């Protein structure tokens, strides 16, 4: 552990940088939380305290519906992308196989492609693919939840894979090999050795995937079907008329919901850790 100990000045710099980063990240969030209670429709003008926007939110079935779609899309696409992305990262970092370079390059393209280009290409792709399916199998498919998830996974695999690879890269492979020799079962070696080692990278990749999915407007707008609008697409369509404080209220509620989730999982982790300690004693 002594390698981690640093000079007092360095420690002071690290700590204050940490505080500044957090302040930077939360300043706009705090501001929008404050204005979600403002009585004035004009942004930046304090119109007295009100909970009107929250009341409106609870009456607004359309916003609620778009939040529902957004959350479902984010969860489903993140799970799929995290599994696929982690598998690709392992394959690329730990194995040599035919087509590796092509696969590697292909996995960078979703990061590089401009949003709007991907949006247009997915729209044309689904249109033509559905025509083809209709022709071959007589199935009339239409755009909606599934097409949004497919598109989000298509860009998220790449992001998850990059983050996980940053974790695996240069990581000592001898442990895994030793484990493989010991357990004989590859799944066990993965489950008990590799996965715990790469877990922080997987968590980071999943967090990034959720964020990207919750934020995507352009691609979603082009591949959504009628009635499957997500929250960001809905908000985007509103900007012509001004982002009302209702949208601020939505943000605050989503923030509270995610904080609750996080607090819950931390509590769960703690409980598990305690149980683990008791069991081992």
């Amino acid at each position, binding site marked *: 552990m002594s390698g981690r100990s640093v000079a007092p000045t360095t420690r002071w710099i690290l700590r204050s940088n940490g505080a500044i980063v957090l302040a930077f990240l939360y300043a706009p969030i705090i501001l929008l939380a404050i204005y979600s209670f403002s009585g004035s429709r004009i942004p930046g003008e304090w119109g007295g305290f009100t909970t009107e926007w929250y009341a409106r939110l609870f009456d607004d079935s359309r916003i609620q519906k778009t939040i529902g779609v957004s959350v479902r899309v984010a969860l489903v696409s993140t799970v799929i992308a995290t599994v696929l992305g982690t598998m690709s990262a392992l394959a690329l970092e730990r194995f040599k196989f035919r087509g590796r*370079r092509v696969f590697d390059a292909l996995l960078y393209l979703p990061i590089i492609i401009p949003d709007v280009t991907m949006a247009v290409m997915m729209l044309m792709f689904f249109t033509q693919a559905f025509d083809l399916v209709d022709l071959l199998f007589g199935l009339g498919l239409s755009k909606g939840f599934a097409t949004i998830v497919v598109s989000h996974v298509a860009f998220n695999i790449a992001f998850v894979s990059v983050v996980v690879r940053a974790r695996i890269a240069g990581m000592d492979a001898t442990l895994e090999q030793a484990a493989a020799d010991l357990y004989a079962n590859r799944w066990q070696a993965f489950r008990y050795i590799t996965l715990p080692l790469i877990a922080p990278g997987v968590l980071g990749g999943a967090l990034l995937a959720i964020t990207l999915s919750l934020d995507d407007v352009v691609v979603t707008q082009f591949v959504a079907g009628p009635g499957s609008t997500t929250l960001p697409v809905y908000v985007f369509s509103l900007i012509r008329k001004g982002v009302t404080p209702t949208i601020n209220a939505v943000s605050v509620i989503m923030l509270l919901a995610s904080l609750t989730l996080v607090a819950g999982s931390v509590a769960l982790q703690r409980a598990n850790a305690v149980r683990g300690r008791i069991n081992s004693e």
Partner: protein
Amino acid sequence: MTVLPDADVLETALGEAERREEAAQRRRGLILALPSFAYMILFFAVPLVIVLVYSFATRTSTGSTSLSDWNLDAYRKLGEPIVRNVVIRSIVLALITTVLCLVIAYPFAYFCATRSVTVRNLLLVAVMIPFWTNFLVRNYAWRLLLSSGGPISSFTESIGLGPTEILFTKTAVVIGLVYAYLPFMILPLFASIDRLDWRLVEASRDLYASGPASFRKVVLPLTMPGVIAGSILVFVPSMGAYVTPELLGGGKETLLGSYIVTQFLTARNWPVGASLSFVLMSVMLVSTIIYFRAGGKNL
């Protein structure tokens, strides 16, 4: 002399086993990669072919795309000075954003990685949570923060520095982009600092004695994969960003992202939008490969 054939046999047998093991490894790698490989080919590479096809097509007078006339007009258009200016401006902006993100994120990721597991997980999630609000809403919040009547301006005025007019300037764009992409830098940096072998750092401290030297010669090289991954994840989207520059910069300068969006959604000139995207992607891919090679990694 009689021993040699035996050694040969042994060697052949060993080579055989090695080859078999290697073949098995290759097979396992392929199996592991196959699901995502297939997915990416079907849902990314095939659609991408459409973009490629469009880049050789012609814009009709109604703004749709005609595939009956194949030509390179859309690529020729990329030689115009406006495109060159836009590209140079965007590269400079993306570089500034990437460097700032790196400088801010590295110590933060280092700080996170040296905390206890619970604290570090909390910190990581704390970094991401602001981004689970809507990105447009975040941009509008920055508009409020930076506007001439906003909190920052009021603060500088109250301490006698006079009001600040940051909104609709380049500074505002840089602040907005650094804000938007900071987590993209923090996550991979954290992932690679966290798996640092601290024994090496300790050994280096014994050797070099000074903290900065050991950082420069041991910590930084070992965490280079994170630096590279983070830089790409920040640089690339900064090149294509358009909502933040439009909202915080007031759209007074044309950047690459907004130029591409303009081609698709205002001029309705899909061939030019497609050709520009294609050239952009090719250049980025090639430079990423070079960057990785330089960083001692293969792509």
